[in-house]
């Protein structure tokens, strides 16, 4: 190739940069994963000897089990409520033009700009007022507020990509509105709904900042339990838990990919 040296240098630098950036993205997960298999009771990298004892510890630790159970309960409730509420609002915002539509859209997306600790603190004060500080309800309501924007966006984009003429064609073929909804609209929205649900579930399960405010000992979720643990101990149990986290999330995404295609679920492909 008769390329000038400067060009080739530029090309090499570019490739190096891309590799470096990608490397930095996976570096934390990589380091933590390796550290999780350390035999010693310190968070060291690279480990000298390997063992699975910290995984055992993570699974058997009472607060983590409780946190995991709480997390799953909160995650399921949050993601389902957020999916229903978010989809309903997305539908209304997409299909109807009315006064105050922009205000509603703005309010629903507001949690994106309000810090999580503000939402958490607000919910805590409010919950204290009505005497509900130790309930799942307050945790779930708080998380629904936080994940709603993601569900809304996801379903809204799917609705925008849905060709309205498909519904008109179905209607002209004799399908009543509910039949159009069940046989045309919902099936074509499935990728958007799944992606919205998935975002909500993952975000809710990982959410820490607001959860720290609104959970009590009895209702604390896994990230809060992890925080409390790390304040007292500094052994590789945390790293082991992190690995479990990564594996569970990756499994969810892999399942979504297998059934629907990740491109569709993440809304990067037209749903056609």
């Amino acid at each position, binding site marked *: 190739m008769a390329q000038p040296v400067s060009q080739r240098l530029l090309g090499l630098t570019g490739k190096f940069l891309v590799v470096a950036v990608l490397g930095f993205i996976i570096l934390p997960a990589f380091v933590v994963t390796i550290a999780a298999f350390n035999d010693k009771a310190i968070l060291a990298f690279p480990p000298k000897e390997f063992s699975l004892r910290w995984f055992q510890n993570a699974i058997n630790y009472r607060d983590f089990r409780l946190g995991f159970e709480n997390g799953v309960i909160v995650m399921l409730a949050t993601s389902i409520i957020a999916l229903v509420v978010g989809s309903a609002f997305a539908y209304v915002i997409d299909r109807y033009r009315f006064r105050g539509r922009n205000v509603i859209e703005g309010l629903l997306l507001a949690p994106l700009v309000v810090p999580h600790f503000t939402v958490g603190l607000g919910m805590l004060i409010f919950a204290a007022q009505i005497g509900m500080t130790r309930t799942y309800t307050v945790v779930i309501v708080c998380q629904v507020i936080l994940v709603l924007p993601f569900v809304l966006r996801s379903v809204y984009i799917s609705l925008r990509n849905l*060709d309205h*003429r*498909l519904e*008109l*064609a*179905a*209607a*002209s*073929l*004799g*399908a*009543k*509105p509910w*039949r159009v909804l069940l*046989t*045309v609209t919902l*099936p*074509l929205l499935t990728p958007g709904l799944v992606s919205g649900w998935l975002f909500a579930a993952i975000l809710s399960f990982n959410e820490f900042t607001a959860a720290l405010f609104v959970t009590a000992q009895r209702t604390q979720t896994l990230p809060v339990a992890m925080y409390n643990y790390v304040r007292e101990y500094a052994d590789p149990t945390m790293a082991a838990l992190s690995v479990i986290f990564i594996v569970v999330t990756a499994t969810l995404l892999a399942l979504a990919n297998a059934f629907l295609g990740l491109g569709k679920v993440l809304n990067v492909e037209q*749903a*056609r």
Partner: protein
Amino acid sequence: MLSRPGDRQPTEQVAAEAAVRLDGVSKRFGPSVALDQAWLKVRRGEFMTLLGPSGCGKTTLLNLVAGFLAPNEGEIFIDGALVTDVPAFARQTGIVFQNYALFPHMTVANNVAYGLKARGVRKDEIRRRVAEILAMMKLSGYEERKPRELSGGQQQRVALARALVIEPKVLLLDEPFSALDKNLRASMQVEVKEIQRRLGVTTIFVTHDQSEALSLSDRIAVMSAGRICQIDTPEALYRRPADRFVASFIGEGSLLHATIEQMAGDSAIVSVGRSKIAVPAAPLSGLSTGSQVDLFVRPEHMQVGAPDTAAFEGQVAAAIYQGDHVDLYVDAPEAANGRLMMRLAAREAGGLSHAGSKVAIAILGEDAVAFPRTA
């Protein structure tokens, strides 16, 4: 059941009713008027085309018939029954959209069966009718394909099959050919026309393509700015356009300065240059002798004449060779915008083909129409 022509013989009383009737239907979107006082009767089995430029209201009219929109004023009848307030799903219309709007998550067979399922037709009956219509559309063997695995022409046939299998009272076609390439378009047009005639299904077809409209339609409603300008057969529209818009939208022609010489009942005599031409009086109502008008003449109705029969003289600006004929662009003061276009058989045009030649132009009297001059 899909059918042989005999199946659809309506009783005489019903036959007297128009298949689709619009009585003074208007539709507004906010302040803009999409359709203004439309009156239309589509006969049973007729192929009616709504023709006009984009934004003329033709698609709005189609959506009103389908029941996708509700009119602000007026009434809509299908088969003599008032349907103005009947929802789309109960109107029994079949629609084919420009992009076909096939359900992407269903197979061809399920797309076609959709309307029958929605009507609660028995399973074996559905199977039989779907197979029948797919065979008719030359789609047998494609039952289990998804729409995206088909070519544009095949997708269109699926869309047609889906609309026709429910035996619609009226078939609505919304620019269905415009997404096809040129060769396929011509063959699909022939196919659609043939199927339409065979099934005898009343059809309303929306297009902005005048040649498509002229070749397919029994009658055409020419629309402009939310109004129906004229409803007539293709030939009548071409030969006797009711107004300036219809004249210029259908086919080609040139406007010439003319003066009314005489108004006599149904016809009027106008003079252009040294010639006098008879034209229909209807478009000129309200005008009197001496008024300035625009005479609309088709390119094939002007000839190179001997100087004594010619109406006026002009100078060739350009001659465009088109194979069997030559389009001659001539500059003359009598032409409304300074230039006219005439069409000569290739052998007559010899010797005139270079710019700057002087020509004497004679106007053949047939099918000339005059319109009031606009300010």
